[in-house]
């Protein structure tokens, strides 16, 4: 039953798959091998499960107001010349729990999906969620008229199955959103825009926190493993 391919799969390859670091072609190829090989699936589970456990164990609460106050009150010794600092979109740092529980919530008005000069309008986020509904966690799909969309996780919640999806549009800012499935399809529960096209923005850490708060608010457990996810998505990959 254990059919050996010519190449051994290293732990680091499996880890990169679990962490969403492989490109979609590599990820698809590896997923296909894992689907045929329970031993590989078990090795992969070590990486997905440790990450899920750590996310659950070290989820941050709100940033304590005293830290924000400390930054505001701190004395600054700066150089005479006014330093050029990359500006990050200011956003509310205090995130009331009750707000996180509200059903539809959009953060970041700079959402870049509606391209200004695109001849055809970009798909809505609900359509993006639908487009990747057969894509397992960790994989990236190219969505027409948008760009890359990567599934970061699936969760069982009080709202049913919810998925966290990252989009990197060909044009406009990156973002993440949570979509939950109801009878009519995918409903966007929360969307966060990075507001910048730069490769790195520390604000993404804030986004992670908000998403965690939202997932907690709808009673999400740990991220689903590949097998459970596939079953809940209804599409048997075989």
């Amino acid at each position, binding site marked *: 039953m254990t059919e050996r391919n010519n190449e051994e799969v290293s732990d680091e390859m499996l880890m990169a798959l679990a962490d969403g670091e492989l490109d979609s072609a590599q990820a698809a190829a590896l997923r296909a091998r894992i689907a045929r090989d329970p031993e590989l699936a078990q090795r992969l589970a070590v990486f997905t499960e440790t990450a899920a456990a750590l996310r659950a*164990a070290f989820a*941050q609460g709100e940033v304590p107001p005293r*830290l924000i106050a400390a930054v505001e009150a701190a*004395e*600054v010794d700066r150089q005479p010349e006014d*330093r050029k*600092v990359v500006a990050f979109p200011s956003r509310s740092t205090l995130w009331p729990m009750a707000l996180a529980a509200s059903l539809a919530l959009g953060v970041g008005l700079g959402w870049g999906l509606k391209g200004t000069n695109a001849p055809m309008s970009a798909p809505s986020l609900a359509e993006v969620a639908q487009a990747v509904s057969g894509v397992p966690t960790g994989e990236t799909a190219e969505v027409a008229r948008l760009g890359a969309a990567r599934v970061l996780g699936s969760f069982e919640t009080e709202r049913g199955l919810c998925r966290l999806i990252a989009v990197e549009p060909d044009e406009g800012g990156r973002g993440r959103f949570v979509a939950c499935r109801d009878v009519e399809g995918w409903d966007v529960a929360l969307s966060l825009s990075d507001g910048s096209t730069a490769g790195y923005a520390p604000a993404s850490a804030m986004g992670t926190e908000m998403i965690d708060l939202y997932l907690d608010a709808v009673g999400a457990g740990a991220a689903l493993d590949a097998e459970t996810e596939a079953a809940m998505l209804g599409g048997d990959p075989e």
Partner: protein
Amino acid sequence: VTDPVKRQIVDMLPLLRAFARSLAPSWDQADDLVQATVEKGLRNLSSFAPGTRLDSWLYKIMRNAWIDQHRAARPVVSIDDDATLELVGEDGRRVTEARLDLAHVRAAMDRLPEDQRAVLMLVCVEGLRYREVAEMLEVPQGTVMSRLARARAALAEDLGMTSRDARRQGEAR
């Protein structure tokens, strides 16, 4: 907050807290460390080289502050007790089977070496890319990956996740 550097630091607070929590064994101590770090950083802002990474620079300040503090004072916090207390403080309504294991996860994390805890916090908890973590910690990406792989193997072993029937989250104990 109107000052651009201060605003950038405020936006970075969740990341700094994650860094700090990888050094300190509780959120209280992590937050004290974050506060000491941002105050020290802003006080010495003239020594920050523009165009370099503010997060890397603050992380170095943070590590030094933590080491200094612990050279002076013997650690007094019992890690396991602390982890258990945090669990009790959580919203009981949502504590599922998997979440009951969180105290074990925290304790197992605290037993790992510091460099491994940092990459776990940044990649697994904060969801940063390997490349971003490598830049932030100023180590090669391969080093980030080998630390991550080692740390997760040790964690899985410690938590009994590697056993044959530990295939689903809820059974991993």
